[in-house]
């Protein structure tokens, strides 16, 4: 079985269209980020309290609790900014209160007092998850996350510089920023939170997309030696086509397992899996339509020749 046999698609000539599409998506993301005052950070980065509570009614025939009722009670006690939502099951309620004070214990006490019909006596079953982060830790983590992504990028540039040449490294990193920006943008558009696991997902996307890009680059390096007399552009086209089958298959297998994680992995891992799903699609796209075309663009504009050809 084979999906693609000997394709001869001219990817490079379509690079302007690709650049426009990418640019537009990134722009929409940036606009969304500006409107929403930056990314929607989770309590990991802002500080605050997150509670996942099991409001399964004690009486099995009773109706599930109404979110509005919980909101009213919390408002009554002065927790005005609380975000309350269902979490994977109508009885599982997620309460998020951002801010500098750690209030988890008080909120649990209030809810247990006000909703005796839903809150079981047994604390262990009522409280599924409690996360409280002081604002200072949040700030530090934000700094650390940005630093981590930058360090990873730097490491990658250096490695590719060593194995290929500097322009390849820069082209790869441009593609990676492209992937990260689009993922953050889409998260902002859909109002999803950037939490610690999402940062982990972003770094994984970086690794994954790079994997794809390097496979193409590797082929380019090989083909530049074989087809010395051909135009740079056509060699690259040739390399992308040769690796196309592999790129699609690997993306497919990875996509399928992450989809499985997204669908069955439970609510805790949901945002993480979503970021990976977006990242795999965008990363596959960028290794074909961004990384290599950026290389072509660079060599055509500068009029230089790749040092890899001479070797």
């Amino acid at each position, binding site marked *: 079985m084979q999906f693609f046999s000997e394709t001869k698609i001219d990817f490079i000539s379509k690079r302007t269209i690709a650049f426009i599409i990418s640019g537009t998506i990134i722009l929409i993301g940036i606009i969304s980020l500006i409107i929403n005052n930056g990314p929607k950070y989770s309590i990991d980065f802002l500080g605050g309290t997150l509670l996942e509570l099991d409001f399964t009614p004690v009486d099995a025939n009773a109706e599930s609790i109404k979110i509005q009722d919980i909101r009213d009670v919390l408002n009554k006690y002065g927790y005005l900014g609380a975000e309350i939502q269902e979490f994977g099951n109508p009885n599982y309620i997620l309460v998020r209160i951002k801010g500098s004070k750690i209030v988890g214990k008080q909120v649990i006490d209030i809810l247990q007092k006000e909703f005796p019909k839903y809150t079981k006596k047994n604390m262990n*079953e009522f409280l599924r998850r409690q996360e409280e982060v002081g604002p200072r830790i949040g700030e530090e983590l934000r700094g650390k996350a940005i630093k981590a992504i930058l360090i990873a990028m730097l490491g990658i540039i250096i490695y590719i510089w060593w194995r290929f040449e500097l322009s390849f490294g820069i082209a790869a990193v441009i593609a990676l920023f492209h992937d990260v920006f689009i993922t953050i943008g889409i998260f902002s558009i859909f109002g999803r939170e950037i939490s610690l696991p999402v940062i982990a997902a972003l770094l994984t996307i970086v690794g994954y997309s790079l994997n794809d890009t390097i496979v193409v680059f590797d082929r380019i390096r090989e083909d530049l030696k074989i087809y010395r007399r051909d135009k740079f552009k056509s060699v690259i086209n040739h390399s992308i086509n040769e690796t196309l089958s592999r790129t699609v298959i690997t993306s497919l297998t990875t996509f399928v397992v992450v989809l499985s994680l997204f669908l069955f992995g439970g609510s805790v891992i949901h945002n993480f899996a979503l970021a990976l799903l977006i990242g795999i699609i965008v990363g596959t796209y960028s290794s074909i339509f961004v990384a290599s075309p950026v290389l072509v663009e660079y060599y055509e504009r500068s009029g230089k020749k790749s040092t890899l050809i001479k070797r």
Partner: protein
Amino acid sequence: MKKSKWRTFLIIAVVLVTIYYLLPLMFTRDTVVCNIEIYDQSDSLLKSITGEEYRVGSKKYGDKIDEMLAKTKTNEFLEIRTIIPADVLADVKVSPEKLQQMQTVKINVKNLKSEVTLPSWFSHKTLKLGLDLQGGMHLVMEVDTSELPKKDAEYAVKSALEIIRNRIDQFGVSEPNIQLIGDNRILVQLPGLHDPKRAKNLIGKTALLEFKLVAKSDDIKKAIENLDQYFQENYSKYAFLQEVKEGEEAAVESSLLEDVKDENIEKEKVENENIEQKKEDESKKSEEEIEQKEENQHSKVFSSLLASSQNELIVENENLPVINKIIKLPELDKILPEGIQILLGKANLEDPYGPRPIFFLYKNTELTGKYLKTADVSIGQGMDPRTANKPYVSLEFNNEGAEIFARVTEKNVKERLAIVLDNVVHSAPVINQRIAGGRAQITGNFTMKEAKDLAIVLRAGKLPAPVEIIEERTIGPSLGSDSIKAGFISAIVGLIIVILFMMVYYKAAGFIADIALVFNMVIILAVLTMFRATLTMPGIAGIILTIGMSVDANVLIFARIREELKKKRGIRSAIDNGYKRAIITILDANITTLITAVVLYQFGTGPIRGFAVTLSIGIIASMFTAILLTRAIFDAFILNKQRKTLSI
């Protein structure tokens, strides 16, 4: 050929190591020794079954508990709500309606015994689950050292760490992780915790160092008599008393009275025994007498919990749960003689399941840590064999403290002064003479480590800086087990789809890649066990991602082999060239992914590190399985038969 010999050797080695670490994980642990506590709807204890050897599968306590016990690890606390079979609760006086309701059951597995015992040289390591999978509490605390000079700051953080460790040890959580992170932060991880509120209160409490006098023998005797009498009269009120194995009172009594040498008591005891003997002879004569006998049977409930060792009262580990409950009874004050309290001594760090000393003290606090200036370890000088070259702890009080100390020691020569920290007695030396000048020594047969610990604990009593909780993550056990299930299902679904896809797309070659893929999963688990790494939910995500990414190496190789085959090369050279060309690409691609994984590890905390770890192991293992292992299979395939076609 030499190369392939090495390859075979390496593959066999990896298989053996994997078996060594994973085989023990696969054997179900058939017998457990556990403590089970059963509570009713309103959280009051119905029955507690301590230290019972229980065979999983006998369904003695109902299916649900059986299922939980089968999964439980040593020293893990579990709590479930279920219906307990009536015969288990038979001797608990509850109404039939109540029995039909759901009860809360807390289980603490103390020991696991495998029926199928592997040779002892097999690995005994188990796969550690992260807090997010087994439930538990993660705390980060910050010691506020902003108002301290730099030199003191470091010391303040260390003391705080000791205090916290001390308290958690008292709390009795198994396998806690307490460590310093950065300059002034303390990380506390308590797995399998079932009362986060209480734990947090305990950790946040201020440390209290107190000096109290140990009660005189007569008072101790009186206290024990009072307790015995009270529990005899109110035996039915306390369900947990049924766990007490009675009949060891003789040993306790005699040891306790050794220094008093009260012959009367000895006589009394003999008489008592005689009466019992007679009773037994005449037993079953009338109902009345049986009742009387029953009363007498419980006459030494409390004292049978105690034992003695080197003139000190101790409590064996198996009796600790009952003693702890008794000490916490709110009515205890009324039972004990006026002004007496009971405290436990420090648990022995080297023998956590050994006995613990128990002390009867006068409630009145003679001196507190408020007056302590410093505590240090010194080595004894001079010729005295009792102190020379032996470490001791020296204390220094401030002026006010020195005055009080002098007064107290003068009044109580030959008595024992207990050093109590957070309600645990750390030592109780005998006062030899009046001590003036505010300096005191705690001598004893200390090892250097013990003496240091004691000094730290003493200093720790005087917490030099406030401690604040800045991060807390608590995962309930229900969410943890949901996550395990979810992770398992998504891994299996992903794995099956990828396996089928590879077989459809690459036929026989795909099947070979599938073998490599499954082997890769097994290696990840073995390596995690080997390095005692923790498996977290993001860790499971890392394994799942590896499923997708590790076939990539084979996809690359197979794509190359197909290309070579198109060039009308022979099978052997197509495979040779396919591998040779793909390996460079695989290395480049995987090394860059490893770079990001390493950065992720550096940056991440707890769960995220778990992801970086499994992803890294997965990548490295995939290079082994997808390149070496598949190549070996291919070679074996070609070597045996002269094949003209390759199913790829």
